[in-house]
């Protein structure tokens, strides 16, 4: 569709301050990524309302049915015990969402807090915290998580601890670096000379400056948390088997891959597009907030 020059000028002239503020956010990366993430949230939050079947209801007369698409009884087919795959995908989104958000929030709070304290106080405190960081970071990614679940057994709480155990470190490193440079800045000196306590300076002057970076790291941490959770579930080290998760569905489907491809295909598609969406969103946000953060994330485990 062609738009004439007059129409274009009138469009830009009519744009409100709100639209102008929105401008930098309307990039393909952010819009596409945002749509995928929204889909995940909608699927997760409304899972009980939009699922056509109970995700755990078995129907042994209808096992391994191929996708029925629009006309069929089971849109994406059924698995080896006759459970509806679409419903399990919706409930799986819920687990991915809950775990990813919890892991990212806990890692963020721990990482930013330790990083801020480490950078602000410097000296021995910094040395101690950084040695600890070095030791935890010395484990290959995911290995420590695998070991923790292997020794402590399956469970939602254990899984979250296992996923947090290394994920707070990128936050801590970046927060420390920024806090180290912030502590000598004039506004911090000014606050100190006015008699502000360490607690007050960290809380009101240092932390607000660390939030943008933490937000960007958080999106990448969320993508890697979703992949790690799926990996652990795939290895049989995730949440207890009763709860449907994408990784566990994939592991089940793997056995039937030569006869019933849909079992493993659809959960994998969901993981891929969710992670892709979050990565696109994170990349777009980083371009807007701080291009200097370019090497602080993007890896997956």
């Amino acid at each position: 569709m062609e738009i004439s020059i007059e129409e274009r000028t009138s469009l830009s002239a009519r744009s409100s301050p709100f639209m102008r503020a929105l401008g930098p956010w309307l990039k393909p990366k952010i819009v596409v990524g945002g749509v995928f993430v929204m889909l995940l949230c909608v699927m997760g939050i409304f899972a009980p309302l939009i699922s056509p079947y109970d995700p755990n209801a078995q129907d042994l007369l209808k096992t391994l049915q191929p996708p029925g698409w629009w006309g069929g009884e089971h849109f994406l087919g059924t698995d080896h015990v006759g459970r509806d795959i679409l419903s399990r995908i919706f409930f799986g989104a819920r687990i991915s969402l809950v775990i990813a958000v919890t892991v990212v929030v806990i890692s963020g709070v721990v990482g930013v807090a330790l990083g801020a304290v480490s950078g602000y106080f410097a000296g021995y405190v910094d040395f101690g915290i950084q040695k600890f960081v070095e030791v935890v970071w010395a484990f290959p990614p995911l290995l420590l998580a695998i070991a923790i679940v292997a020794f402590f057994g399956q469970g939602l709480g254990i899984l979250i601890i296992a996923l947090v155990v290394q994920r707070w470190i990128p936050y801590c490193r970046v927060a420390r670096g920024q806090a180290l440079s912030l502590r000598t800045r004039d506004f911090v000196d000014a606050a100190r000379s006015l008699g502000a306590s360490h607690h007050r300076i960290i809380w009101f002057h240092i932390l607000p400056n660390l939030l943008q970076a933490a937000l960007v790291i958080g999106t990448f941490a969320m993508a890697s948390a979703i992949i790690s959770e799926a990996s652990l579930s795939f290895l049989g080290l995730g949440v207890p088997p009763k709860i449907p998760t994408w990784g566990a569905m994939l592991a089940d489907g793997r056995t039937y891959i030569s006869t019933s491809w849909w079992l493993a295909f659809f959960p994998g598609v969901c993981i891929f597009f969710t992670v892709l969406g979050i990565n696109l969103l994170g990349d777009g946000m980083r371009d807007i907030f701080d291009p200097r953060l370019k090497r602080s994330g993007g890896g997956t485990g």
Partner: protein
Amino acid sequence: MFQYIARRIFGTIPVIILISMLVFMLVQFAPGDPADLLLSDEATTEDIEAARERWGLNQPVYVQYWKFLTAALQGDLGTSFRYADPVLLMIGDRLPATIELAFFAILIAIVFGVPLGVWAGARPNSWIDNVGSFFGFFGISMPSFWFGIMLILIVSGFLNLLPSAGRNTYGIADDPITGFYILDSILYWNWKAVLDGLSFIILPAIALGTNMLGILMRVTRSSVLEVMHEDMVRTARAKGLSEHKVLWRHAFRNALIPIITVVGLELGTLLSGSIIVETVFSWPGSGSLLIEAINSRDYPLITGTVLAYTLMFVIINLTIDIIYAAIDPRIRFGN
């Protein structure tokens, strides 16, 4: 230089000791009695008492840790209960398969990731940049286990081109020399076995290497993009060099340091990625050994494998640090 190496090696010793402590604590704090954990289910009460005595489980924790550490330093990581073999030997048997797989994964990542990144960085916003960026995001967002399963489905299942499980066809191989199957076959001049080995390694190596390919592509792109704006590139162009020469002789060379850094950093991710990919392709490496150990609750084998993997990771990182210092003197004299 020597001083720098000595400092880095001494700096690593406390980290290794703390790692061993953390792994030791995992066994200590795991729910249940360590004696139960470290013995098979068939152990009688007397066996458990004997084991307590032998491992000193009645003694204070620090004595136990000391015993664990000194044994580990002598290469004694315990005995697997499932196979009754020393853990260290079992890991050593399986390790070449993992290293071989990792080598081919890195090869695939570099061969495809770096040129894509260079072309994309040389022509930002062109079609090749868009294709490259697509591969970049594809690589970093693709869960390796799902990609592996889909490769098996399409390449092995539908197209019937490559095998989907294992490391070689039974009976083709000669006796191992190094344990690296393809290398051994070359040494024996057994080309049939080389081709056989390659056909088995392609799919798992692609599944394992895709993530690194994506990251490498992105880093190479941004690194080249940065260098292309420097004066020396303009000078090279002004001298009348062809664009090809400017790109590969001048820009690419200067963009190499961040690329090497990322290859180094990603080696660790590759190590843990291999645990999953080996499971998908039934690859007989140390990663699938760890998962077998977890599934059969073989705790000495789990502890040993985790410790071995972590030590490898630490040594790789240390080596990379030292290589950098050799390449770039600024690192040696910095903090």
